[in-house]
């Protein structure tokens, strides 16, 4: 457990460093093109550092509002709140906040920078479909993500991957828009160079992004959370039955989930029939294998 906590803390620092270096590289490229290499780097580092600080302290609220999650009150969701409180007691952690996403899909995720600033989110569909033991299983799984600081690394990955994807998108679009201009004047040559640089940057970035997501999801992490969650509830069939219901969910698409946030969820929030792109990004362990391992406990 302590090893996992330390691992996640180190990985988080590495992730932030890689992010700042990547953005600095991008700044160097753009700055170099316009004749001011150092200015570009300096601006990029300042921007990336500020963004990293924001990501660390309020990445969880960013992700929660992106996912359309609303804080659950004791009055409206006594069942959920009691379950979260119970498992916090079992894990010896402060009670995380509980959030609800109004969506029929069965899914859940945890986020936050540490156990003192963490939250657990479930869909209303999940609340409706699961009985108490099953819900405890799911909440136990999320609680162990919180306990060993998986949440910090996963949150940072989501927020940083999100911004890189957004920027790649913006760059591509601004190139397409700019490309319409006259190609005969002096500017045309510059744009061609920018195009080449952007192409190169994107070519470099994409596999790195994929790798980052891969690292964040890692099957080991999910299996470990399943096992630790079962230790918390002392009742592996609870989570196993919940996963069975999740596997049978006819419409697993969580409307507001995207590629950057998908790895947070307990099960892939996309449709079953996946395009090659989502398959590449979705490295959730196969749900049947998780059920089998839980039932063997």
């Amino acid at each position: 457990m302590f090893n996992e906590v330390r691992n996640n803390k180190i990985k988080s620092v590495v992730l932030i460093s890689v992010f700042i270096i990547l953005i600095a590289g991008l700044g160097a490229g753009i700055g170099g093109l316009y004749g001011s290499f150092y200015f570009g780097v300096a601006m990029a580092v300042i921007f990336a550092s500020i963004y990293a600080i924001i990501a660390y302290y309020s990445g969880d609220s960013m992700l929660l509002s992106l996912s359309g999650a609303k804080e659950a009150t004791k009055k409206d969701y006594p069942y959920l709140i009691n379950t979260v409180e119970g498992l916090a007691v079992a894990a010896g952690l402060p009670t995380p906040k509980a959030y609800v996403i109004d969506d029929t899909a069965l899914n859940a995720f945890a986020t936050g920078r540490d156990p003192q600033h963490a939250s657990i989110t479930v869909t209303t569909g999940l609340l409706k479909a699961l009985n108490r033991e099953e819900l405890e299983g799911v909440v136990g799984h999320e609680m162990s993500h919180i306990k060993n600081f998986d949440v910090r690394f996963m949150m940072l990955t989501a927020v940083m991957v999100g911004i890189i994807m957004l920027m790649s998108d913006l760059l591509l679009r601004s190139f397409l828009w700019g490309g319409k201009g006259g190609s005969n004047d002096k500017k045309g040559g510059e744009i061609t160079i920018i195009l080449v640089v952007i192409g190169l940057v994107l070519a470099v970035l994409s596999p790195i992004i994929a790798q980052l997501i891969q690292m964040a999801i890692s099957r080991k992490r999910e299996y470990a959370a399943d096992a630790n969650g079962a230790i918390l509830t002392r009742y592996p069939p609870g989570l196993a039955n919940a996963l069975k219901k999740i596997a049978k969910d006819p419409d697993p698409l969580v409307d507001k989930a995207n590629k950057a946030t998908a790895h947070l969820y307990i099960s892939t929030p996309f449709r079953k029939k996946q395009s090659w792109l989502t398959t590449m990004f979705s490295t959730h362990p196969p749900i049947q294998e998780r059920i089998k391992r839980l039932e063997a406990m």
Partner: protein
Amino acid sequence: MNTLAIVLIIIAVIVLFVIVLYNSLIRLRNQVKNAWAQIDVQLKRRNDLIPNLVESVKGYMKHEKTVLEDVTKARSAILAAETVEAKGKASNVLSKTLKSLFAVSENYPQLKANENFMQLQEELSGTENKIAYSRQFYNDIVMTFNTKIQTFPDNIFAKMLNFSAEASFEATAEEKKNVKVQF
């Protein structure tokens, strides 16, 4: 001179070891105390809910006086209990009487439909689970603590420093079958 240095180094190492051990034992023992306080919080919460429950049930269950009396009695027994063992036993008795109260309530459809009763039932079953979880956590911490002070070489110094094993809860026969408490 050389031997003196060696002796001094050995003494220093032992002193350092004892300091580290002492601090970690104190930390663990405080965790045990804190875990114990957590159980108390949950037991108190349940005790606070019971008068409301009895109040809301009374009107409907006129013929079930004994069940209600049992619950009230078991509630006061917890307040009187002080040791880990006594508290555990009293708490189990209360859990059992509550269970039979909710079982009897099945015969009163009007009561079951009562909003206030439904809320109390959810609160009580949530609290029962929290009690079970806080006991589980307490037992885990106590086991870590006890293992530490009973294994070599920590046991030698633990005894000298006056640390002794803490008591843990015995699981009831029912709990062994199924950890979950469901009404």
